[in-house]
């Protein structure tokens, strides 16, 4: 059993992610966020449960679908929303947009738009942690699609050879864009069995049960800090909205009839609410504070300036090139 304060924190963080993503979806059609967005509504428990076991010293890398990871890792809501707007106040000064988030203050190293390509970077970060005898670990968020990239396999192999403190946190939402698992992976293959075959320690946990994820992850991260070697956690979960964009796309028929509804019936947020039955006043206050924070974030983002066009070519290099023209 978890202590109640911690449970409330998990609930709070899931609400933060859900309400933020809902607000992004609501505002997106206004075309002020002029970049592709991949929302995590339905998948909040995985992000929040995993990050609950991590500190700011711990590092995370993520994917195209990273808003939830960033917020759960302690990211700055204002900086996120501003980044989606391409504004100078964004966490990457607008250069990254939704698919390239980063905030070293909270150990959110990078998210990237090339499927799988942040995975080895996370493993390399774990290598540096090991070399420095740090207690910190690195969490690599990945999807069930990213597992298909050879770079996952190569990186996992190396992590196992060197027993690196790295956690592969896999949100298996069964889809890569519109393609179901059966088009992409052998029938009946378990991701945990695959991970074990490669040499990782592996667990599966209900990706819609934030407490279960948090509990398991706490244990696994502790074992990582003890040098037990890399671990893989598979979290079955489900994306509610379209792959990229703000809308519901269930009418397109790429998912079996009723599949979405069945997963919505297992809404991770409602499940947690039902389970811990928070005080109504707490809930109302939390919702209202979140609504205000989110509202304010959008207002600030809209009001913020774009980065100066004059700065467009700055900072390509850390040690500037001296083109001797």
């Amino acid at each position, binding site marked *: 059993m978890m202590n109640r304060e911690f449970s409330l924190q998990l609930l709070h963080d899931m609400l933060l992610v859900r309400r933020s993503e809902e607000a992004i979806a609501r505002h*997106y*059609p206004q*075309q002020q*966020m*002029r*970049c*592709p*967005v991949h929302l995590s509504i339905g998948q909040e428990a995985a992000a929040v449960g995993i990050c609950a076991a991590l500190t700011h010293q711990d590092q995370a890398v993520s994917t195209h679908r990273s808003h939830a990871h960033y917020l759960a890792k302690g990211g700055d809501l204002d900086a996120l929303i501003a980044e989606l707007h*391409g*504004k*100078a106040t*964004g966490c990457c*000064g*607008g*250069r*990254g*947009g*939704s*698919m*390239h988030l980063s905030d070293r203050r909270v150990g959110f190293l990078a998210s*990237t*738009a*090339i*499927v*799988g390509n942040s995975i080895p970077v996370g493993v390399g970060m774990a290598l540096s942690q090991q070399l420095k005898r740090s207690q910190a670990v690195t969490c690599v968020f990945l999807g069930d*699609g*990213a597992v*298909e*990239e*050879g*770079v996952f396999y190569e990186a996992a192999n190396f992590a196992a050879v060197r027993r690196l403190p790295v956690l592969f946190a896999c949100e298996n939402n069964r889809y*890569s*864009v*519109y*393609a179901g698992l059966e*088009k*992409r*992976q052998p029938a009946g293959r378990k991701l945990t069995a695959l991970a074990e075959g490669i040499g990782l320690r592996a667990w599966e946990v209900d990706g819609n049960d934030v407490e279960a994820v948090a509990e398991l992850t706490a244990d696994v991260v502790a074992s990582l800090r003890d040098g037990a070697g890399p671990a893989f956690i598979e979290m079955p979960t489900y994306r509610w909205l379209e792959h*990229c*964009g703000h809308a519901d*796309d269930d009418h*397109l*028929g*790429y998912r079996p009839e009723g599949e979405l509804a069945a997963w919505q019936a297992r809404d991770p947020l409602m499940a947690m609410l039902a389970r811990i039955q928070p005080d109504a006043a707490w809930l109302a206050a939390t919702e209202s504070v979140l609504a205000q924070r989110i509202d304010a974030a959008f207002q600030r983002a809209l009001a913020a*300036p*774009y*980065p*100066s*066009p004059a*700065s*467009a*070519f700055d900072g*390509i290099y850390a040690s500037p090139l001296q083109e001797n023209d």
Partner: protein
Amino acid sequence: MARIHAAQAIHDALHLAMAADPGVVCYGLGIDDPKRIFGTTAGLQEAFGAERVFDMPTAENAMTGIGIGAALGGMRPVMCHQRLDFFLLAMDQLVNNAAKWRYTFGEGHKVPLTLRLILGRGWGQGPTHSQNLQAWFAHVPGLKVVMPASAADAKGLLLSAIFDDDPVVFLEHRWIHAAIGEVPDGDVRVPIGKAATVREGDALTIVAMSYLVAEAHHACRALEQAGVYCELIDLRTIKPLDMATIRASVARTGRLLVLDSGFATGSVAGEIIARIAMDDWSLLRAAPQRLAAPDCPEPTSYGLTRQFYTEAGDIVRAAGKMLGLSQLPLEALPPARTHHDVPGDWFTGPF
């Protein structure tokens, strides 16, 4: 003849090729999904079955090698990537295998593989969804590289690519999908290796590729208002370069401006300029010039991207400078789009 847009023309080419040759197979992420790769593969799986038209795992490198193997097995695979940038994972297969095997192993080893790589632009595509790496492919012996600018060429070059016995990189700019034009019916091919002179003139030779041809047309029209007639060459094929056409034009104009959608340093534009400087020195009456993308990763922010694309106004300005025009006919250009980061006001994101 029909007036259709390039996405439809590509679609038609795929249907024609698959119907003509049972060896043609098409695959790529999303090929049979609701969006059908911007509509270009609509109806393909329905018409030709799930064996010949299939989605794939997210595994660009192996899937390219699998295309090579299937090609050696007698197929004509057409692989599609929704962004060129994803294909960086497959350079080993492309360069070390596909490009080299005909030469290394001999006649039995033709690799009729077509790689449709879509080039992103605008709407926050950012650093890894917007790269135009035609210069890389052009550097590799054994590859052929085409970049259509019009609907007709999209169809005709894709047909040529598919039925060519060598690996062909078909670079498909996202913004030409909407280009409308007259397209011949049936299996009408545009030869690989031939540029097209799409406007005639004697003041300046402008060489362009892909979407930049559209911008160049605007610029040329505006310059004509000022009595300056530029010759516009649509490269169409990047490798091999049709230097004969460029040379003949420079012989008339004495002036060369090359537009390139890739990073400036090491661009195809630079190669063309170098070749003219080396081989046709005496034809030039002034220093040749290029307009290319800046040597900088492309940022995502709407506020930063305007400078990353060559537009008609830039071309007019460059031409004006080369020709010593005192007045630039900028007002003769069509009105700017409301937003620089979309092909037209009809575009509402996300891609």
